[in-house]
């Protein structure tokens, strides 16, 4: 069953929402994507290929110049409210402690917003349970700058998930971290997904990350970004670091690598 659908989507760079598609640079060109409910999907490609733009299109932060984006059968015309987002920078609010940072969406998204006062205690518990799931129990009262980069990213994941969004959009969330921290967070994210089963779209340029985490990997060519290859990953869950050394894993990464090279010449 298709949950998110992109049909022939074009986006002209720097003119989000503009009508004409003239001789300007296309960021995304005739993108077609079908994403099932609860799917974990990764989009890989060279930097600047419009991967992040694809996420913004799905979130409704930009409108396509041509084609359509639908979520749950409805055309996306304004920012969706059932979305959680996480970026390469943790973007935590430096004046709030970790717990209050995680609880930010509950102050904005309905129905939590109007029930804030009476659910204060329950919400705090939710935040702390979620923080515990990513290995941050006991850090709720710390300020963001007291945490390392990896810990800030864990907190950011909690903030993206606290309002139980149906879609989680991740824009290179682990790109600024060292390899060991990153690999730790892969397993954290996999656990969160197995536990929540929301639809996750992960944009990354790290192929091992994509194969480790996703069920389907799409390869995008360099600008104008178009999807040139789709692979499904049949490696059983839960995947571990050990899986990344198995021949089928390595073959898949190798194959994706090859298609990215093709996409660059393209």
């Amino acid at each position: 069953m298709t949950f998110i659908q992109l049909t022939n989507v074009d986006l002209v760079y720097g003119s989000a929402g503009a009508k004409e598609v003239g001789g300007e640079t296309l960021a995304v060109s005739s993108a077609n994507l079908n994403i099932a409910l609860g799917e974990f999907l990764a989009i890989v490609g060279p930097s600047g290929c419009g991967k992040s733009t694809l996420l913004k299109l799905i979130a409704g932060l930009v409108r396509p110049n041509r084609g359509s984006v639908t979520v749950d059968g409805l055309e996306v015309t304004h920012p969706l409210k059932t979305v959680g987002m996480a970026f390469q920078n943790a973007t935590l609010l430096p004046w709030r402690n970790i717990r209050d940072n995680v609880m930010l969406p509950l102050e904005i998204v309905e129905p939590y917003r109007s029930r804030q006062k009476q659910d204060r205690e329950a919400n705090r518990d939710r935040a702390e349970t979620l923080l515990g799931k990513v290995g941050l129990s006991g850090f709720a009262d710390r300020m963001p700058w007291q945490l390392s980069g990896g810990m800030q990213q864990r907190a950011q994941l909690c903030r993206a998930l606290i309002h139980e969004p149906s879609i989680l959009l991740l824009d290179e969330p682990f790109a600024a971290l060292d390899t060991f921290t990153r690999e730790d967070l892969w397993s954290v994210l996999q656990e969160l997904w197995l536990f929540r089963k929301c639809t996750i779209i992960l944009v990354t340029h790290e192929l091992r990350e994509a194969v480790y985490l996703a069920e389907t990997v799409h390869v995008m060519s360099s600008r104008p970004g178009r999807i040139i290859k789709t692979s499904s990953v049949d490696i059983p869950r839960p995947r571990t670091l050990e899986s990344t050394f198995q021949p089928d894993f390595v073959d898949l990464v190798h194959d994706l690598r090859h298609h990215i090279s093709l996409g660059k010449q393209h």
Partner: protein
Amino acid sequence: MQRLAPWLATAAFVAVWWLCVVIFDIKSFVLPSPWEAVKAIYQFRYPLFVHGLATLTTTLVGFAIAVAFGMVLGILVGSSRLAYSALYPLLVGFNSVPKAALVPVLVIWFGAGTVPAVITAFMLSFFPVVANVATAFATIEPELLEVMRSLGASQRDMTLKIGIPRSLPFFFASLKIAITLAFVGSVIAEIVAGNSGIGNVMLIASSNFNIPLVFAALLVVGFMGVGMYAIFDFFERRMTSWSIRGAGAQFAGGG
């Protein structure tokens, strides 16, 4: 050492002032020694108190209007690119106008007295507030705005939950500049067209060649300025401690 530093620097300044007066044998109607200035403060303590209070009131009224006006305009200019490009040149131009030259015009409009002084204090001090608040709002990380927009946050949510807390350190920094400028504004207006206030005291004292009193009045203004600065500094430390990563911080290691 850091606690003592401001006192030491001030003491050094007074010492240099005093030495200059002694070494070059400067007459007190040209430059009084610090001691003569302090004596003048004591001798004229009653008028200095009354007029100091008048200046303080005038300054604070002008300053309060400047802060309120500056914050609103700063939020507007910082949140909207259109407002920024439309208003910023105008603001810079306005700020370049020497306000002292406007005092006589204000007197024609409002008569001599407190009103021109309040307006001058306001005109001199609102710009740093606007500029700082606008900068804070204009430099919010785009990703943070995307997180907020993707949650369906309204413009009001973003202003209240992101913009205002984020602008507080900038805001307090601007208050410390603005309050000193407000003093400059009100004293200038009092000198040009006042019938009360420290500026008025200075005008009368210098026309009587009572230079020690002029310096006594200057010291009083200086003290009031430092006092207000200290008050804002105190509130800044309490309200924006998150932006000062000082001592006592705990660092958590690991991933």
